[in-house]
């Protein structure tokens, strides 16, 4: 299942884990990404908490946790190659989160709704 947030994150559910990245639209808006700061594995995060910092040539921005849960993996490749976010935003995932009890991504936008959002 692939879903999208209003903060321009994509969420992909595989079993009981959700992989999170940013959309191509977001990466275009950010411009050239030069640095990514990822959360620690094992960290319990609350929905809405800022957990990733993305620095582009232009500015710093955050990614917030789309749901509450535990960070179970991060994409360390981004430390060496932050530009991967610009090259292929759908492949350059940031972290995987194991949703807390009762958390689900069903309610987020599907692709059609997201496309409508960004026009």
């Amino acid at each position, binding site marked *: 299942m692939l879903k999208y947030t209003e903060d321009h994150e994509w969420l992909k559910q595989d079993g009981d884990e959700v992989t999170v990245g940013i959309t191509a639209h977001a990466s275009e808006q950010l411009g*050239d990404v030069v*640095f990514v*700061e990822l959360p620690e594995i094992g960290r319990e995060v609350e929905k809405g908490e800022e957990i990733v910092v993305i*620095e582009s*040539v*232009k500015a710093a921005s955050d990614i917030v946790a789309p749901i509450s849960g535990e960070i179970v993996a991060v994409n360390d490749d981004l430390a060496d190659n*932050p530009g991967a976010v610009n090259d292929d935003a759908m492949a350059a995932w940031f972290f995987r989160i194991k949703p807390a009890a009762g958390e689900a991504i069903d309610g987020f936008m599907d692709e059609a709704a997201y496309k409508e959002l960004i026009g």
Partner: protein
Amino acid sequence: MAELKRTPLYDLHVSLGGKMVPFAGWEMPVQFPMGVMGEHLHTRGKAGLFDVSHMGQVILRAPSGKAADAAQVLETAVPANIVGLGEGRQRYGLFTNEQGGILDDLMIANRGDHLFLVVNAACADQDIALLRKLDGVSVEPITDRALLALQGPEAVRVLSALIPAVAEMKFMDVAVLDWDGAEMWVSRSGYTGEDGFEISVPADRAEAFAKALLADEAVAPIGLGARDSLRLEAGMPLYGHDMDADVTPGAAALGWSIPKIRRTGGEREGGFPGADVILPELAEGAASKRIGLRPEGRAPIREGVAIYDAAEGGAQIGTVCSGGFGPSVGGPVAMAILPSGLSDGDTVYAELRGKRVPVKVSDLPFIKPDYKR
């Protein structure tokens, strides 16, 4: 909010895919489809075309029709050697206030029978009002000309194909030259650390001229984003960031623009606003000074980030005034006004999102300029 002004190149920017943003009262391109990183590297590698028409162009004349007389008057507002500026030459200077702070920075060109000034867009109204208060000069804001900058190692080849005489110009030379019947005011200067030119063009010929430059495959249009990263790497201060009405020339590390002749004991000592603050500070050395910083990690430190003298505790010793990622340096670079005495290689600490990160003091500029002296 007042309506944003548009330069004569607005339509061209839009047609080239420029992302337009409000800047100092103008609608300006912040980037083109190439993106800030690509535009920055293109300028350092080939040639970048910048629209700087938002900047203020002003002619200053004395009734005698001699630039030297206008220079004498301007020296009462600007602590530079303007009287000694040769015809066909340009120089950098500062408007200062009574407290010794900087009101704006500007370029001053001697064009024989008058001075030609280029001032910052955001300060232009203030500067023109200030100039109009000076006795013995007339002030003509130039509103019917665009200002373009062509910067980078290929700039001279590209521009001399259109205007051959520019090849003979040296860094900071100015000349009035013809292009296809249009009067072009050319200076070999710019604000990127690269060899290049600034060209004032009649507004109605600006688009044709820009297109003629862009027809060369070495030339790409460049937005404000790369303009900022280029000047930061070149260690050049930007008004409103690295200097303002509360920052003295000494603290901004711009004492070099105030030559011996205007300093204590010089032939035309003082006589400008704030001299009683600025000159003793230059003589004794400023207590704090703008310096370069190189964060050790990859995370950029940007304007407003606090700088400390220790990894934990300690005292805040300053704040980043300009910072970001330097595409040619390949890492983050920044400038801050910090207590004097720090030298190249010393470590200070930036507080970034609640964590202190080590930052090395670095000589400016971060890149080696390639001016044709």
